[in-house]
Each structure stands twice: as structure tokens, then as C-alpha cells.
């Protein structure tokens, strides 16, 4: 069966989404178990796949039995093996953790909600695993369309921000499609490896350069890289907690994976870093992104919105790290994809627990929460420490690699930006801790009056996944050396030094 793991990763969630949508019309209680079962199989096979990749190297899976340039094939190497494992584990943990909040926020729409949820995970996993440039576009649209639906469930300003996200997301996806079209007209192929094989003769072509730029801009739009970030904060803030804790950790990270895949596999580092001399300006853009994200986060009085601006800064980290053009920076960027997905999940799950009990994430609602919800806040502290970059949590190590990469490349601006952003994160999170710890809980603020039952700890089903994530954060931090030596080292082509 392990030969079929690459197929199972995408197919099992897809089938379970379809079964959920049918089961939702029969009995709503079946949706959650089916979703968890489907996601567990995906998580199990992706972790199994990662270990197989560690043993055997690149795995090729031909869909329909056709040989790659004709048909579509999956290429699983160390890079997407790692990302696959992270995506499927994050999706599974979040599905378990958000069960209560889904039942609380929209009890009557559980069926379609889980359908879209699992479909979105299918799309994200497919984006990561596929080796065909056009197939990636189709999966991109699946992840995007389901994302619009999940975000717009939030009510209030949800639909408007989802509509803005839709405009921007569609432009981004179309740009990507256009770039692939340019590659296709020049090479005649759609398979990533095959394109990379043909391209070296065409490196001087204007069309290939344009293809690269258009693809990059499209991907940046999707990941909310600095000048193109306007849609992200509202979309993530007004989404219901169950959706935002899925979308926030995964969508931007998967898009960064796509960018790294474009740089490393399709266009090879030789072309991206040496022939096109655009690394410097892009790193400076990411410096601005980090500064803007940090400063805008400072001005927010809503915990969830503050976190969305931190995401923008984190996107800056990874884009900058990938474009430093050296091995250490790329290692940092790839490591940070995994770490950032996990720590964003941790803080968003904690916020989800708070919203579940307090019904709001404004700062004035958070007073005295350390006494009311000690376990949730404990996990939140670990997540926050990781975001700041305190050892032994994993955030420290990827930041370490990013900073050493910046020094090696002579990009001191990027180093300063990273340090500045870490300092701002210290300020941001300690301000939250202060409110939650020192200020007494009062019923006069926020929505405290509307629910007479006292605020207490979130249910166990929400706490256990949160603790698992927090534990993973520390574990990944402790085993960073192994991950870098056994996985990330092989994910970067030898040519990049």
C-alpha cells in the first residue's frame, strides 16, 4: 500500500469531502468523524511518505499511468515531503480543536462547512504534491474558492472582505496561469521537471523573464507580500475562528512553498539568482514588508487583527530568506515554513479558545484571562515565545538561520528588519500578557454583560490539540538540527551555495 501513498494523500480527503456532503443531508453528527478520519489517513500517509522519501529519495507517482511529460505526475522530494506533513498535521489538529466552536457558531451548517474545510485541505495538499504546473493552478483555485466560502461565513463584514480577497486572489491565480502560458508557448511543456530541463537554452529570452515576473507577482498576491497585502488583515480577522485557524497557518505558507518551488525547480537557482539580478530589490521589499507588518501590528487593539499583521511580517521573513540567494537563507526560509505554520496554528487556536468563551478578541475583553483560562493562556505563551524567537522554541532556530543567511549575503538591512520585528513582537505579546495577567477581570467591558455564566477554561477537546501543538513547537525546536541535516539539506539543490 505504501506505493500508493502519494495518491492517497489527495484522494482520501477528496472522497471524504464528498461523503461528508452527502452525510450532511442525512445526519449532521456523521460529518465530524468522517472529516477526522479522512484527514487522519492523509496525515498518516504524508508522514509515511516523508519517511519513505528519507529512505529512497525522490518518489514519482504517475497519475493514470502516463509517463510524465504526457500525463500528470507527482514528484515528492524532501521539500514537499516536509510541507505535506506539516499541512496535513495542522489541518487534522485544527479540525479536532475547532469542533466545539463550529457547533457554537453555525450549528445548522455543519455539513457544508466540513465539506469546504476538507476540500480546502485537499487543494492545499494537492498544490504541494503536484509536479505539473497547470495542475497546480486548478488546485490553487480549489483552495481559493473554498477559502472564500469559509471566510465569508463570518457574517458582518465577512462577505465584503471575502469579495475583496476573491478579486485579488483571482488576479493572482490568473497571473500565475498567464506565466505558465508564457512558459508553455516557449517550451511546449507543462511538467515542472521537464520545463526545467528545456529552459536553460532559453534563459536569455524576454518571454521567459516575463513569465518569471508574472508568476512571481501572482504568487505574491496570493501570499500577501508587502505591497499586495491589503486583502489579508480583514479577510482573516472577520473569518470565523475555525476557518481562520485553518487558513492563517496554511494558505500563505503553501504559497511560499510554491514560490520556492518556482525558484528552485522550474527556474533553477542559476536563473533566479544569477541571470535575473533582482534579488537585492526583492530583499529590500521584504524588509519594508517586515517593518510595515510590525508597525501596523502595533497600532491594533484587536488580538486577532494584530496577529494577521504579524503574518504579513512573517511572509516578509520567508520571501526575504528565500531571495537572499544562499544556502543558509534558503534553509531558514524552508524551516520557517514549517515552524511558522505550527506557531501560527498555536496562537490562532488559543485565540479561538478565547473567542469561544469570551465572544471577542478586543484587548479589553482579555482582562484577567490568565486566571480564568490558565491552560489556554499557557499554550498561547509558548506560541508567542516561538513567534518572538525565544529558544528552545522552534521560532528561534529558523530566525537564526535567516539572520546568518543575511549576514552571509551582506544584506544587513534584512538582518536589522528581523531583529526589529522580533523586538516589536516582544512588545506586542508582552502587552497582551500584561492585560491578561495584571488587569483584573471585569464584567463592565466588552460583551461581559451578555453571558451570565462565568468564563472558565475551554473544553478538553479544544485544549488537547492546543497542547499537542505547543509540545510540537518545543520538540521541533529541540530537533531542529536533525530536521535540517536530514530533510532541508536535501531539499535545496547542490548548485546553491
Amino acid at each position, binding site marked *: 500500500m505504501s506505493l500508493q501513498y502519494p495518491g492517497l494523500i489527495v484522494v482520501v480527503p477528496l472522497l471524504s469531502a464528498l461523503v461528508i456532503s452527502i452525510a450532511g443531508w442525512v445526519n449532521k453528527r456523521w460529518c465530524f468523524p468522517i472529516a477526522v478520519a479522512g484527514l487522519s489517513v492523509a496525515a498518516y500517509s504524508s508522514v509515511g511518505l516523508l519517511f519513505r522519501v528519507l529512505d529512497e529519495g525522490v518518489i514519482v507517482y504517475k497519475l493514470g499511468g502516463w509517463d510524465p511529460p504526457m500525463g500528470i505526475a507527482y514528484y515528492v522530494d524532501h521539500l514537499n515531503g516536509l510541507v505535506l506533513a506539516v499541512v496535513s498535521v495542522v489541518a487534522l489538529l485544527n479540525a479536532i480543536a475547532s469542533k466545539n466552536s463550529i457547533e457554537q457558531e453555525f450549528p445548522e451548517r455543519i455539513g457544508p462547512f466540513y465539506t469546504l474545510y476538507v476540500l480546502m485541505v485537499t487543494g492545499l495538499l494537492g498544490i504541494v504534491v503536484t509536479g505539473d504546473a*497547470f495542475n497546480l493552478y*486548478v488546485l490553487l*483555485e480549489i483552495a481559493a*474558492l473554498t477559502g*472564500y*466560502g469559509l471566510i*465569508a461565513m463570518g457574517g*458582518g*463584514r465577512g*462577505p*465584503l472582505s*471575502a*469579495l475583496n480577497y*476573491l*478579486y485579488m486572489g*483571482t*488576479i493572482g491565480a*490568473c497571473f500565475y*496561469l*498567464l506565466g505558465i*502560458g508564457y512558459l*508553455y*508557448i516557449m517550451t511546449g511543456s*507543462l511538467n515542472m521537471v521537464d520545463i526545467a530541463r528545456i529552459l536553460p537554452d532559453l534563459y536569455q529570452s524576454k518571454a521567459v523573464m516575463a513569465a518569471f515576473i508574472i508568476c512571481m507577482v501572482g504568487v505574491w498576491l496570493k501570499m500577501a507580500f508587502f505591497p499586495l497585502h491589503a486583502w489579508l488583515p480583514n479577510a482573516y480577522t472577520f473569518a470565523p475562528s475555525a476557518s481562520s485557524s485553518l487558513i492563517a497557518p496554511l494558505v500563505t505558507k503553501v504559497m511560499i512553498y510554491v514560490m520556492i518551488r518556482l525558484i528552485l525547480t522550474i527556474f533553477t537557482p542559476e536563473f533566479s539568482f544569477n541571470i535575473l539580478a533582482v534579488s537585492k530589490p526583492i530583499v529590500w521589499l521584504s524588509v519594508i514588508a517586515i517593518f510595515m507588518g510590525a508597525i501596523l501590528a502595533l497600532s491594533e487593539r484587536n488580538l486577532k487583527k494584530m496577529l494577521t499583521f504579524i503574518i504579513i511580517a512573517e511572509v516578509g521573513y520567508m520571501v526575504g530568506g528565500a531571495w537572499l540567494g544562499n544556502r543558509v537563507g534558503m534553509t531558514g526560509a524552508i524551516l520557517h515554513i514549517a515552524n511558522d505554520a505550527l506557531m501560527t496554528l498555536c496562537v490562532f487556536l488559543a485565540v479561538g479558545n478565547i473567542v469561544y468563551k469570551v465572544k471577542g478578541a478586543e484587548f479589553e475583553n482579555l482582562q484577567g484571562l490568565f486566571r480564568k483560562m490558565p491552560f489556554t493562556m499557557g499554550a498561547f505563551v509558548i506560541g508567542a515565545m516561538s513567534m518572538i524567537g525565544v529558544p528552545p522554541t522552534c521560532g528561534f532556530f529558523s530566525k537564526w538561520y535567516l539572520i546568518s543567511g543575511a549576514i552571509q549575503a551582506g544584506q544587513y538591512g534584512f538582518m536589522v528588519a528581523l531583529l526589529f520585528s522580533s523586538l516589536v513582537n516582544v512588545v506586542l505579546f508582552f502587552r497582551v500578557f500584561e492585560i491578561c495577567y495584571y488587569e483584573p477581570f471585569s464584567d463592565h467591558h466588552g460583551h461581559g454583560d451578555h453571558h451570565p455564566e462565568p468564563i472558565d477554561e475551554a473544553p478538553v477537546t479544544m485544549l488537547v490539540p492546543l497542547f499537542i501543538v505547543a509540545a510540537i513547537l518545543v520538540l521541533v525546536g529541540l530537533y531542529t538540527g536533525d530536521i535540517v541535516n536530514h530533510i532541508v539539506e536535501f531539499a535545496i539543490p547542490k548548485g546553491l551555495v
Partner: protein
Amino acid sequence: MGDIIQTIVAKYNFWIYITLMMIGLYAMIAKNNLVKKIVGMNIFQTAIILFYVSIGAKRGATIPILEHGHGGGHNVVHAIDYANPLPHVLMLTAIVVAVATLGVALALAIRVYDRYSTLEEDEILSQIREE
């Protein structure tokens, strides 16, 4: 002069697709009305489809359906006689994606209208500011 006209005519399809794409992109960014933006979005997507179909066109070739499919069987098929089928396949998929996006976009626009009773972006923004 002759050269320029030659180039323009030889790649007329490409120029038109670029024009349409610019129109669509401009409408998506600059138009104030949400439904107009959706129209722009569709024009944008169709322009890209036009680009791909133009890649598939081949001079002197017929549609990509084999003649005498089940009859002779001994007829040798020459690739030069048939248009390139691959872009057509890709664009079938892209059209479907376009209509799916359109459906979701219209549903969202209706939800927005439900709340703000207008489709004009500036009026919606001023309502949000008053909240």
C-alpha cells in the same frame, strides 16, 4: 514600416489578448461597482483563455478530431494536419474555473448588498466608517 505592419498582423491575436487583459485588469482595480468588477474579472479570465487558444492555433490545420476514427484504422495520422489539442484541454478547465468563481463572486455580492443596500464601493466604505 512594412516590417512593423508585418509584426502587428502576424501577432494580432497576442496584441488583442493583451488589450483585453489590460481592460479587465483596469476594471478590476479601478471600477467602483462590485458587479462591474466581476464583469472585469471575467473579461480578464477570457483574455487569458484567448491567449492559450492562440497558442494552439496552427496554420492549415483542422480541428483536433481524427477523421475516419473507427473506419480505416490504417490511415496514418500526421500531427501537422491537426490543431494542437493540449491548450484546448487546459482552457476547458479554465472556463469551468471561471464560471465557478463567477458563481461564488455573485453570491458574495448579493450578501454584501443584503447588508449595505448598495453595490458601490465608496458608499459601502463610508457606511463602514460610520459604524
